[in-house]
């Protein structure tokens, strides 16, 4: 089997199978439900892509969205990473050009699985550069099915990370290639790939810090060579210019602290190269070492000063491991929490145990590229430990290093000793075929367990569209709760096109995407005061809330209520966050302590705080719920909230300024219409002046006035009767 033809055929077919495996294991949600965009953020991306395909590229780049964040609007062109939309739009354009008419929604849904196949290929290329072809193939297979990557790239999850990981791996491959060969061709390719990465994801900061760190460590290890110099100098300049072309990034690469490391290393590299040049010309070596030390010290101090001066931003917070964040909005997102070991094991299974072994092998057989992967592993594992969401950046390097470890083991234990190119001198030198085959079998068993685990995790944990809920009965039949889409389609078909919908910011993107209505706040959360206004409206009583809603021109209010089916992600459970955010901006009007009982409990039954029982959110959630008999057993009283396990306290709810417009089948989504101001404010009994019932016309007053006066009298007397 020595002909190269067989080898490349085998590699090709393995890679093809890996791509296929990756694609198909991401299709669980599509098969169980249908091809639909999942979650919240992808709906915004889908809407932007739709806008791009209907209106063209320049319209998209200059788009000002007046249907979000009413009345402020949002500059979409300048606040979004366009890579994802442009990729999907381009694929759609090319397919339609070839007369394969595919709807943009299908392109968006299946984009992530297709790119996962491309990620597998680029991981193969990268690992082949680092170690050998066998390790590359193993790495491709690992990354195709590993849950840590699948979680953000299932079919339907149309989000930046789906294409960003491919761009990351490809950029790293091209960088390693350019350091190895020192040619400008590969470096320019790396810059173009970096440009694509900058357009795709905010995580490009990782690249622009890892590559300078790599160069810096190479300098420290005295591995400087002309190749490194050519590669980094070209990469920094061209990459900088290209990255500033994205409107969202703008001038950040020369202003913010996250990019200063790259500049510092660039300056240092120029100084070092100059010194090397001098060294070839002059012979004063001791003087040079001192000079070099001085230069590196100066560069290090400049670097530290810059970091200290711009001590801000999420990036530096990560560096100093402050995960406790003071802005309530960021604290309320569950993805920004630190990671337990269970999350590591859940997402990576056996790879998390074996990748340190791969790291060991890499460092023991060090060369320029393996320095890079070692640094990548160490920095990625730190960030993944601090924030759950960054587990995604750890996954590729874990796959690569475990592949290195497994490949080393298999290389030595698989196959027959006598058929090798260099058979051992004596027959006793080898370990014996028995032990070898046992070891090989056990390793293969481990890998099979890994594959089974990945499939189970993908199927159970990461394949829910979260727009459609499914529950399973005792006999296994499926119960689908399609309330969200039902409500959004009702909004789409039964309200005026320019109606404005107020809801909590979680649902903004979905309302804009599926119902196509103007929203007040959405998942972008860029304006905390606006969100605080909405929170204040939800937590105040009806009259105060009505004033806020009139000032914001709200037509409809949408809330999520889970008390009928026991859905725990509803707005009453999120209510305390609304209060906290509102209290942050309006501390005199809203106090969190008002919504608790004197003992400090949050209760919705009779013992609950009166402020809570009369606030707008409570009334909207439990309107007419007091008469509802929930299907749980004959003994549950009407008005029993299944999520809070309590009978509600305020059953007789009446609205003055709102009226119920729509409640979905399982009461999950409730929509209320905000009534316009009355023509005349009806006065209370006490304030009305009693007018005698006789008609009274003064001869001095024109009949018109008397007539009107009589009309008034008639009206008042009619009211009294």
């Amino acid at each position, binding site marked *: 089997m020595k002909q190269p033809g067989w080898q490349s055929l085998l590699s090709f077919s393995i890679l093809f199978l890996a791509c296929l495996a990756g694609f198909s294991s991401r299709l669980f949600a599509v098969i169980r439900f249908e091809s639909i965009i999942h979650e919240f953020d992808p709906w915004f991306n889908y809407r932007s892509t739709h806008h791009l395909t209907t209106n063209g590229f320049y319209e998209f780049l200059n788009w000002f969205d007046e249907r979000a964040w009413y009345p402020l609007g949002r500059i979409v062109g300048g606040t979004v990473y366009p890579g994802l939309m442009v990729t999907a739009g381009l694929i759609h354009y090319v397919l339609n050009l070839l007369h394969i008419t595919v709807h943009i929604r299908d392109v968006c849904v299946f984009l992530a699985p297709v790119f996962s196949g491309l990620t597998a290929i680029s991981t193969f290329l990268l690992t082949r550069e680092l170690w050998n072809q066998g390790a590359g193939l193993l790495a491709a297979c690992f990354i195709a099915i590993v849950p840590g990557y699948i979680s953000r790239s299932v079919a339907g999850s149309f989000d930046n990370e789906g294409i960003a990981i491919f761009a990351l791996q490809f950029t790293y491959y091209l960088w390693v290639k350019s350091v190895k060969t020192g040619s400008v061709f590969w470096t320019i390719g790396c810059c173009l790939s970096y440009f694509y990465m900058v357009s795709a994801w905010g995580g490009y900061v990782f690249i622009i810090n890892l590559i300078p760190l790599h160069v810096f460590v190479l300098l420290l290890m005295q591995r400087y060579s002309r190749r490194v110099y050519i590669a980094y100098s070209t990469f920094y300049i061209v990459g900088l210019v290209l990255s500033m072309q994205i409107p969202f990034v703008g001038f950040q690469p020369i202003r913010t602290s996250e990019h200063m490391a790259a500049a510092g290393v660039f300056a240092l590299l120029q100084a070092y190269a100059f010194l090397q040049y001098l060294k070839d010309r002059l012979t004063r070596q001791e003087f040079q070492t001192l000079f070099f030390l001085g230069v590196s010290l100066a560069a290090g101090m400049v670097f530290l000063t810059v970091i200290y001066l711009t001590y801000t931003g999420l990036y530096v917070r990560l560096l100093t491991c402050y995960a406790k964040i003071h802005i309530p909005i960021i604290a309320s997102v569950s993805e920004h929490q630190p990671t337990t070991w269970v999350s590591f094991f859940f997402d990576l299974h056996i790879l998390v145990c074996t990748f340190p072994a791969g790291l060991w092998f890499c460092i023991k057989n060090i060369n320029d590229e393996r320095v890079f992967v070692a640094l990548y592993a160490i920095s990625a594992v730190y960030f993944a430990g601090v924030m759950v969401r960054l587990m995604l950046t750890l996954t590729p390097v874990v796959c690569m290093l475990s592949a290195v470890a497994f490949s080393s083991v298999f290389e030595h234990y698989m196959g027959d000793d006598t058929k090798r190119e260099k058979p051992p001198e004596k027959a006793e030198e080898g370990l014996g075929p028995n032990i070898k085959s046992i070891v090989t079998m056990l390793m293969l068993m481990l890998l099979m*367990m890994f594959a089974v685990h990945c499939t189970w995790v993908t199927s159970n944990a990461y394949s829910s569209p979260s727009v459609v809920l499914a529950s399973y009965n005792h006999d296994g039949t499926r119960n689908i709760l399609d309330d969200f889409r039902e409500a959004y389609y009702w909004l789409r078909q039964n309200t005026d096109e320019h109606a404005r919908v107020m809801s909590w910011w979680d649902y903004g993107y979905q309302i804009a995407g599926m119902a196509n209505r103007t929203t007040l706040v959405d998942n972008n959360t860029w304006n905390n005061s606006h969100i605080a206004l909405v929170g204040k409206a939800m937590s105040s009583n009806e009259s105060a809330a009505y004033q806020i809603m009139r000032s914001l021109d709200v037509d409809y209010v949408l809330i999520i209520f889970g008390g009928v089916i026991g859905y725990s992600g509803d707005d009453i459970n999120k209510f305390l966050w609304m209060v906290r955010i509102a209290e942050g901006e309006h501390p005199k009007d809203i106090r969190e302590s008002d919504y608790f009982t004197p003992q400090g409990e949050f209760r919705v039954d009779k013992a609950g705080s009166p402020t809570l029982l009369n606030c707008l959110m409570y009334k909207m959630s439990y309107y007419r719920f007091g008469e509802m008999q929930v299907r749980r057993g004959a003994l549950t009283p009407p008005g029993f909230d299944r999520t809070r396990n309590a009978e509600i306290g305020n059953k007789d709810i009446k609205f003055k300024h709102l009226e119920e417009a729509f409640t979905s089948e399982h009461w999950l989504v409730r929509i209320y219409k905000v009534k316009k101001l009355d023509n005349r404010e009806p006065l209370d009994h006490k304030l009305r002046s009693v007018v005698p019932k006789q008609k009274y016309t003064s001869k001095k007053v024109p009949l018109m006035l008397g007539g009107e006066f009589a009309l008034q009298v008639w009206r008042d007397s009619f009211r009294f009767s």
Partner: protein
Amino acid sequence: SSVLTLLSEKVTQMMEWASKRSVIRMNGDKFRRFVKAPPRNYSVLIMFTALQPQRQCGVCRQADEEFQVLANSWRYSSAFTNKVFFASVDFDEGSDVFQMLNMNSAPTFLHFPSKGKPRKSDTYELQVRGFAAEQLARWVADRTDVQIRIIRPPNYAGPLLLGFLLAAIGGLAYLRRHNLEFLFNKSVWAFSALCFVLIMTSGQMWNHIRGPPYAHKNPSTGQVSYIHGSSQAQFVAETHIVLLFNAAVTMGMVLLCEAATSDMDIGKRKIMCVAGIGLVMLFFSWLLSIFRAKYHGYPYR
């Protein structure tokens, strides 16, 4: 007249006590004379606590520390006047006060305003707000219109440790300045990188940020459990166990490769090989079983 002299005497006495310690310790008698009885033109913030060891009130001790920080910040602040005093009443010294105020839980923070009777908001909602000095200061500002800036005594432990570490490294480098070979030893670097990676993947950052207990002792059965029951949290003991298991699997893989490539004699290599594969399988299966214990519903052994 006599009322005014009585008032000024009381204020002077309170100031004298406050100058000795920022939190005035009161028994029932002092409480009745200086807080309950008129005339009074100052307001008093009192912590009712039970600090005796036999009361076993851990919360009281922590709240006492925070209250001390608050009172000290007030005493050394520029806005210090004789209108606000901080005091504490211990249950064992003034149980009659507890009875008089119908109080049955500790710690409790009450504000006795200079004018009028204490209202509902003069009781600090400990359950809701916690006992951090900053929260207490906000409540004090709300009740008395006096802003206290919390100044905590600077914690020198961190910078001191860093300084010590740098000195140790500097000393080591100086001592071995002619023999810096150990910097080039790949095994040292590989080992330290490995340690760092293993520490991170066992969840030490989570421990550092959330501060969980080492292990949990079930109060009714007395059984100590090192593994947390749910997958959302972990104990420190648990992370150490996981660290050990990960390290064992890694070592197993390394041993396997060493066994195949090294030039020791065949017997030793066979032992290494068996040990390697044994380590990998055994510790990985234990890791799986811990994972299954935490993640209910996981179907694979």
